[in-house]
């Protein structure tokens, strides 16, 4: 695609040089423009991701703000489920938030719903943390539900 009928035979080096310069000039203008845009947007992007992380942490930790927010990524049905588990100082779950998941829409994807996630509040390693025992699994999505349980368990173990 680049210069399909680029230069015939017998063209001299000067012509090549000239075209190279022209393309380079365009590259330079483009690079300059992009650098400016980058300089303006980059801080905002960084800020955004920090804010998002902090917001998530805040959501899973107890109101006091004490405890740890632990990121785990158990294997779900459609790939890893990125989740954040808040563990309070006594080793109980204070909140769970799903950061990203690729579960089946309408089925496994329902793990993000508070109705499901709120069940984990107050659980500790002493609990079995298994679907159909102490956790009501999402109907038809036992694998996704189990994955979240595994993730919570892992986070609790890490918190120790």
């Amino acid at each position: 695609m680049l210069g399909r009928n680029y230069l015939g035979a017998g063209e001299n080096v000067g012509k090549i040089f000239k075209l190279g310069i022209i393309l380079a000039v365009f590259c330079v203008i483009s690079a300059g423009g992009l650098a400016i845009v980058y300089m303006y947007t980059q801080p905002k992007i960084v800020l955004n991701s920090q804010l998002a992380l902090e917001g998530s942490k805040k959501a899973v930790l107890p109101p006091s703000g004490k405890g740890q927010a632990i990121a785990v990524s158990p294997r779900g049905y459609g790939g890893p489920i990125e989740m954040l588990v808040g563990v309070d100082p006594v080793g109980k779950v204070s909140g769970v938030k799903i950061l990203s998941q690729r579960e089946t829409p309408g089925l496994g994807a329902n793990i993000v719903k508070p109705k499901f996630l709120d069940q984990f509040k107050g659980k500790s390693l002493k609990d079995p943390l298994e679907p159909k025992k102490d956790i009501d699994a999402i109907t038809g999505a036992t694998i996704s539900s189990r994955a979240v349980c595994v993730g919570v368990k892992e986070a609790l173990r890490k918190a120790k």
Partner: protein
Amino acid sequence: MELLGIFFAAFLINNILLIRFIALCSFFGVSTKIDTSVGMSFAVIFVMTISSAVSWMVYHYVLAPFHLEFLRTAAFILTIAALVQLEELYLKKMIPNLYRAMGIYLPLITTNCAILAVAFLAIDYRYDFLRSMVYSLGVSGGYSLAIVLFAYVRDRMALAPIPKWFQGYPIAFITAALMSLAFLGFTGMFGL
């Protein structure tokens, strides 16, 4: 084992054409004949492997050291376009037989989103060089699989009395829908 997983995920589970919807123009355009689809497949495997290697190097050895990640779009497309052009010129002169078999597909590949997408995705997934090579092989293999099978299926439909309004592209889309439905069976395989 992990490499196998990367390959399998790219090859079937997240098939680039049927599940990820990348490179669809050529999927529908080239699959009208079995021969062209096979030729295109080989060309894609060839170019994707080389270009993902080169763009990985451009990213990691040119852009990253200078913190110029934001230039990746421009840099990659420039690299790939130049690369394809070079390959075409080289083949045409040096290996004319191979060029006749594959060369005509090369220009089609430059604007094939799959090539660029693989370069981006390999970086988004933070693959190292080996992994990104395996990944690009999986993707191009999945592309070939889907497009060749699709060409065979369309070939079989040549005589079918398809309702008038659905002839041509609409029925091709419906066929792709059903193929994609069948590929849903791979969801979650090997926990990927």
